[in-house]
């Protein structure tokens, strides 16, 4: 164990550089003011963070007069740690086209692909959906799995599709297929089935399963069934995970065999009072033959009817071979007038078997934010913790955000927002 040093020398220099970049990005707004546009920019600096300063720029454009086209970009910029200068990367860059009545939809660019039983994967590619009025849906997608900073890729690609049938909002059934290759070799080939059912308002059921074709067997399966009323909700859930099949088939570690893990549990939520929610969750687990479980209790109290302020408390226990710990966590969010907000989070985790990692791992964060009416927000926080790696660690975080939004122009037939009467 050792203690981390204090703030890095270049902290403020880099933060200012990031803030300047943010301000430059915001400058785009005035040039694009003629179009409906949303722009948000965040700059985050950490005294100790290995990826600080960092910034996010969100750009979203859509046109109420032409709702069939929309574009969105999410750009990350910052210090990657170890690199000599600030760099950037794209998280999202999509162009979405939509047939005005919804019969077809396409998006192209960089996005997270997730549909049916296909595992979410970030790709540079395209995704097309065609729908029929009687509820049939055909999807097809393809592209290149994303590599950081547009790194080199040799014959890596992913392609697949999904066919589904829905019956109103009552029932949906889908079958999906995906094949992924790395260096030209198949790294993942799966057939999936998904289903969702909501026969009555108080009951909904959903499930999916992904079958590995390369190493025949169920790679992942999940199911959830929930019943609810206005004051309570009870969910039963179960899952099957085969870690060996979730790895790329090109990995040496994918051939070690199949020791799947299974989980069965329930989560309940009860609105005990208009502002007080109580939640409880418990699950039994079978991890490769080792039995155990986990559970938590949670209470959330809203300090006002609108939920602007809140207090929360959670107790959690995990008890599995190799992972046994108990944790307590508390949060608070308190509005201080119209523009200021104070928030804090505290957590203490105690492992059953410290094994030299410390008897408890406390963590805390205390933040104050200040927001203006014209979209600017400045927030500062102090974070302190003790971890298995560090006896103590402190960090200062500063975030500068700006959200600029030009309201969509009212389409024909719509007037301005009416007065209160």
């Amino acid at each position, binding site marked *: 164990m050792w203690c981390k040093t204090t703030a890095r020398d270049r902290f403020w220099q880099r933060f200012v550089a990031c803030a300047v970049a943010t301000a430059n990005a915001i400058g785009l707004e005035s040039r694009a003011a003629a179009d409906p546009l949303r722009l948000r920019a965040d700059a985050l600096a950490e005294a100790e963070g290995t990826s600080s300063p960092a910034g996010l720029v969100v750009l979203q454009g859509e046109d109420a007069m032409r709702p069939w086209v929309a574009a969105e970009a999410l750009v990350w910029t910052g210090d990657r740690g170890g690199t000599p200068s600030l760099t950037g990367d794209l998280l*999202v860059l999509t162009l979405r086209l939509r047939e005005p009545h919804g019969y077809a939809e396409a998006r192209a660019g960089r996005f997270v692909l997730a549909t049916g039983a296909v595992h979410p994967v970030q790709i540079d590619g395209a995704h097309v959906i065609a729908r029929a009025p009687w509820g049939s849906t055909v999807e097809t997608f393809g592209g290149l799995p994303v590599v950081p900073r547009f790194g080199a890729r040799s014959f890596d690609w992913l392609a697949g599709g999904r066919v589904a049938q829905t019956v109103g909002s009552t029932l949906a059934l889908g079958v999906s297929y995906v094949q992924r290759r790395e260096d030209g070799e198949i790294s993942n080939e799966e057939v999936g089935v998904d289903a969702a059912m909501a026969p009555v308002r108080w009951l909904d059921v959903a499930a999916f399963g992904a079958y590995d074709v390369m190493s025949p067997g169920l790679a992942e399966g999940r199911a959830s069934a929930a019943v609810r009323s206005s004051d309570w909700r009870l969910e039963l*859930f179960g899952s099957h*995970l085969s870690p060996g099949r979730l790895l790329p088939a090109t990995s040496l570690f994918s051939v070690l065999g199949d020791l799947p893990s299974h989980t069965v549990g329930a989560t309940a939520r009860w609105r005990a009072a208009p502002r007080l929610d109580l939640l409880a969750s418990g699950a039994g687990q079978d991890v490769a033959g080792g039995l155990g479980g986990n559970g938590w209790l949670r209470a959330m109290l809203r300090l006002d009817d609108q939920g602007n302020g809140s207090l*929360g408390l959670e107790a959690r226990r995990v008890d599995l071979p190799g992972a046994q710990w108990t944790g307590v966590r508390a*949060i608070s*969010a308190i509005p201080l007038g119209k523009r200021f907000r104070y928030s804090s989070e505290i957590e203490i985790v105690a492992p059953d078997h410290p094994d030299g990692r410390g008897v408890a791992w406390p963590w805390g964060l205390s933040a104050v934010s200040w927001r203006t009416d014209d979209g600017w927000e400045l927030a500062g926080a102090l974070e302190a913790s003790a*971890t298995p790696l560090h006896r103590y660690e402190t960090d200062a975080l500063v975030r500068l955000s700006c959200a600029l939004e030009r309201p969509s122009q009212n389409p024909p037939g719509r007037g301005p927002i009416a007065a209160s009467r």
Partner: protein
Amino acid sequence: MKTRLSVLVVLAVALAACASVLGLRHESSSHPFEHRAHMLKGINCVECHGGMALAGDEGPLHLPTDADCRHCHQKPHDVRSCVQCHGEPYVRQAAELARAQLRFEHSRHMSAVNGDCVRCHTEVAEARPQTVLPKMATCFGCHEHREQWTLRDCDGCHVDLPTEGTLPDDHLVHDGDFVREHGVRAASARDLCASCHTDRQCASCHGEGTVPALPWKLALGDVSLSGLHRAGFAARHADEARADPGLCTTCHTESSCIDCHTRENVAGPTTNSPHPPGWANGQHGEQARIDPSSCAACHGGAGEQLCVGCHRVGGPGGNPHGPGFASRKDEHHDRPCRLCHGVGQ
């Protein structure tokens, strides 16, 4: 006796305070408008909400003014405006938002329900309604909208659903442990999720392929008990991973661990082995089968040769394939089989 009385007083004050905090007792001077009382008097809604029968998709909301109230209540009991106490401000705000966010014409509906407003505004008959706006399920009671639902065509009623940011309260409920639950819920309806959620919201967690840090710390003042990587996750992440083998691969690639550990200088070519003494001759095989992604995190790629050295065909490590192993790969051509089996072995 005095002590008991003091205790009772303190308890009563504490209970009253609790009732306020829990929302059981309203603190503000305003209270829900007495719709129920007016209904029981047989007063037609349009007597106060004048012009509603002809209201279109734009224009005023036709909420009653003080003059409308004084039409009947000719001797007001207070000099203040009626709406300062009668009617919750958020109910008016909800009506304003609905005007801006929804396409709706009262004129077309009033005739269809023969002027029976309560048929849609069911909650006005309750003593303390949370809202007087009809729920979407009420709309679906007459308008099936099956085709619009199927085609994800929400624009007929919703002006701009992603911007609206309204949490649905009677369909697609985001409740309970939604972070765990959302995957299975979204599997059959990813495009339905996309009617409200944009790509960047998915990428904020599932976009790990590009950036070294999840942007959750940007929300440093937005505290929440839900979420996967909040609070002291860095301290407990190894235990979390062991508790649910394979779960991490839902978002992370097998190289994620070594990338971060190398940056943090806790693993990599210049650090000592994190394994306990005797690991190579002990339980490493069983542990590897339980969570092979943990091994791949450090020993993937070129690091696989460490395993091949012992476990190649004829090597001292023996057959590494565990129970349940089955594969359609060609052992002489497909990677990773050929690493150990090689050509001609």
